[in-house]
């Protein structure tokens, strides 16, 4: 995401003055030119180029190092929160080996379980057990791809969609209601439930879109507010008769009919379901939309420079509304998977978990590119799946995963920091700035 957001004019402000514009232009120049120009050199060999890039601040290196830094801080948290290990630091000067070995033991066990839960467990025997970690990872990945794409698409259009959480919430409500209330044949039922989820998300995306386009209301504020409206709506609708599971006093809805559930891919013992295929399809669609379609071109033009886009005859109103509706559809589909997939089959107050907020992190980690989002979601899904095992085997709270995810994105968002810590070379084609640098 290159940074080229001008100061857009405002009707109820003083007209943008020359110094303000000059300042904004200066800011843009400073942020886009992270890589200093190099003098002309003779063309280096391919191997040389590879080695040069290996320790340069390019996307892959920064991402890997961010992951390492995050895990390092995570390790410190594990150590300081373990009273037994911490006790060994009390006599650090007397027997330093104790502190080191006990710290290493607790940290390595935790991260080993993280890996075994997410990728592969060498001790597992049998087909199902060997595939189980991957299956879990993909199960958690699928909805994150959708919410990540939702946020990323809006980003490219110059909008910050914090409302993926709310859109997913409304999506999950409609998908679940369609899933248990409509008596339909198997395939049709699933399609209708997915459609219902998409419509729900679209409505919740349309509202901030139209408010932004018509009244200039900032989408960040409106989407935050709509997230909570959606949460309360969910907690209200669950306990209504006709929705609440009969005979239950707590907040849980009727389960979705089997005919509306996404089919499992690898047999009944593994949770991975067709949602991951839909996620890949959605990624392909968003990539096509952004890079090959007229709408995508207009969307990127508006995102890069609304004033120029308007001069070129692009309707900003239409683009903003469409972007938010499509983003809402994606988030709504992501939410639908939370009841149509295998994680749950009924509505509960926490049914959507954090997928909307995680989607923001996924979009940033994926550098707001569709296929990047897919990879980022895969990493987050793996952390989630591994975190479950880490919690049950090593007794390390699942919250550590949230910490790791947040830290990774913090480091990604500030590549200058990572660059400084590891003394990285400046990359030539580095696209480092994740800053949108636009205020309320």
């Amino acid at each position, binding site marked *: 995401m290159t940074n080229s957001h001008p100061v857009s004019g*405002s*009707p*109820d*402000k003083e007209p943008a003055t020359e110094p*303000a514009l000059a*300042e*904004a232009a*200066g*800011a843009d120049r*400073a*942020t886009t030119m992270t890589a200093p120009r190099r003098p002309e050199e003779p063309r280096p060999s391919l191997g040389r180029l590879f080695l040069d890039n290996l320790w340069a601040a390019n996307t892959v290196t920064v991402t890997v190092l961010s992951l390492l830094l995050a895990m390092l801080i995570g390790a410190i*948290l594990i150590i300081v*929160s373990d*009273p037994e290990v911490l006790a060994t630091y009390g006599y650090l000067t007397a027997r330093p080996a104790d502190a080191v070995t006990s710290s290493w033991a607790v940290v390595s066990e935790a991260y080993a379980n993280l890996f075994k839960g997410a990728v592969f467990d060498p001790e597992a025997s049998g087909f199902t057990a060997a595939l189980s970690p991957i299956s879990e990872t993909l199960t958690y990945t699928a909805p994150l791809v959708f919410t990540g794409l939702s946020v990323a698409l809006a980003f490219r259009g110059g909008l910050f969609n*914090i409302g993926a959480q709310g859109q997913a919430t409304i999506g999950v409500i409609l998908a679940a209601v369609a899933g248990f209330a409509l008596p339909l044949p198997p395939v049709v039922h699933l399609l209708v439930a997915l459609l219902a989820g998409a419509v729900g998300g679209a409505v919740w995306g349309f509202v901030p879109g139209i408010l932004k*386009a*018509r*009244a*200039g*209301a*900032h989408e960040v*504020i*409106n989407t*935050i*507010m*709509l*997230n*909570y*409206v959606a*949460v*309360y*709506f969910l907690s*209200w609708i669950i306990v209504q008769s006709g929705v609440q599971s009969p005979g239950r006093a707590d907040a849980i809805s009727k389960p979705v009919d089997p005919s509306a559930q996404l089919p499992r891919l690898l047999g009944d013992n593994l949770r991975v379901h067709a949602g991951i295929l839909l996620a890949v399809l959605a990624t392909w669609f968003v990539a096509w939309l952004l890079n090959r379609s007229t709408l995508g071109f207009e969307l990127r033009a508006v995102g890069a420079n*609304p004033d120029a886009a*308007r001069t070129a005859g692009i309707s900003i*109103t239409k683009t903003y509304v469409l972007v938010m509706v499509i983003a809402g559809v994606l988030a709504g589909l992501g939410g639908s998977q939370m009841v149509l997939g295998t994680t749950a089959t009924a509505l509960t107050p926490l049914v959507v978990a954090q997928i909307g907020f995680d989607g*923001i*992190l996924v979009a940033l980690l994926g550098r707001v590119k569709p296929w990047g989002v897919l990879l980022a979601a895969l990493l987050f899904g793996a952390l989630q799946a591994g975190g479950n095992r880490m919690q049950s085997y090593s007794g*390390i*709270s699942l*919250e*550590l*995963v*949230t*910490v*790791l*995810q*947040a*830290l990774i994105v*913090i480091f990604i*968002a500030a590549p*200058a920091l990572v660059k400084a810590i590891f003394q990285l070379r400046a990359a030539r084609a580095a696209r480092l*700035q*994740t*800053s*949108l*640098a*636009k*205020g*309320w």
Partner: protein
Amino acid sequence: MSTTAVPDVAVAPVDQGFWTRHRKIGAVLLALGLLATVLFGALATGQQARFTLSETEGGAALEINGTVGAILFGVVTLLAGGALLAGVPKRWFTLVLGVGLLTFVLSFLCWQVSAAPEGRNFMPLVNVVRGTFILALPLIFGALAGVLCERSGVVNVAIEGQLLMGAFSGALFGSISGSVWVGLVAAAVGGAFISLLLAVFAIRYLVDQVVMGIVLNLLAVGVTGFLYERLMQTNAERYNSAPRFSNWEIPLLSDIPLLGPALFRGNLFLYLGLLLVLVIHIALFRTRWGLRTRSVGEHPTAADTLGVNVLRLRYRNVIMAGVVAGIGGASYTLALYTFTKNMIGGKGFIALAALIFGRWSPTGALLAALFFGFADQLATYLGAIGSAIPSQFLAMLPYLATILAVAGLVGRVRAPAADGKPYIKG
């Protein structure tokens, strides 16, 4: 909030022709009055609605027949709406609007209280006022943190995280040391820690401030949740049993009927919160620091030209905001509850809403926080008397009100001009 509006799609200034903004609001008020008179009047019962000036059913009370009250107050709302529609002098606008909204609420209450089951059709006003302030308290601290940050041009979406970190470190260090004051200082430091991260990444590394705020909220949820499970759940005795500030009665003032018991028998945080509103209001509009803060928030280049150190001022304000929010978080763990995972539960975002609804001013934020607190308290009360109004819809009220405000339906809100824009010297 139309600062980032695109010119061709933004609303034209509405003060044209007959339908000025005041007249539109008048029309809405008229509709509300009609609703109150007809619907609330019809649904209210002929029972007495008692508003007692105490915490219980007994004692002095204001009484009115339910139907009569609902219709009477509804008619006043109707008249206020009519007056606005007909056109009143500008200086009367706020007063008439206030009266109209107040009577609408009263009409609603007459209906609800009179329709409550026998024996419960009374409303203890002391409880309601006190509950409003208690529920508004974290919002007040959070919104003040927002004021400090955003007036100097740094968007603070991390209020939630600052409150949470404050609540956590207050509980943790308060428990370990056994002293409320150590807990209070630790809470301030905890909030300031999240703020420091926000400041460094937003100001030094130019990371988008909204992005950073969201990520910091998640980080705070993760870190506090992780340490809560590792430390506090395994050894609550040692790590999660913070001492609490007791209530301090202010002599004389606490004897005022209604307001005395509700407001002047509170704990440190209540007094501190109200005092901070006053202090920040005066500081922001009457001191050199305030002038500089506002100028940096509106036009940093100009401020820099005049010799204000923009970045240093922003660092200082953001960290002060963290201190304020951290103390706000401690108003939970050092006065009311023990720490639980994610205990702030979205209050930080309501505080953000209060900040915006209160138009980035300390007093506006106070009023907005009290309004949101009242909505919260009302939901609790209506739940207790078995009302048919779902509490979830009342809980939505702050968020919906903010959306309406931001969309320009309740009045124009405008953020500081440089809010959210990193400043690069040169």
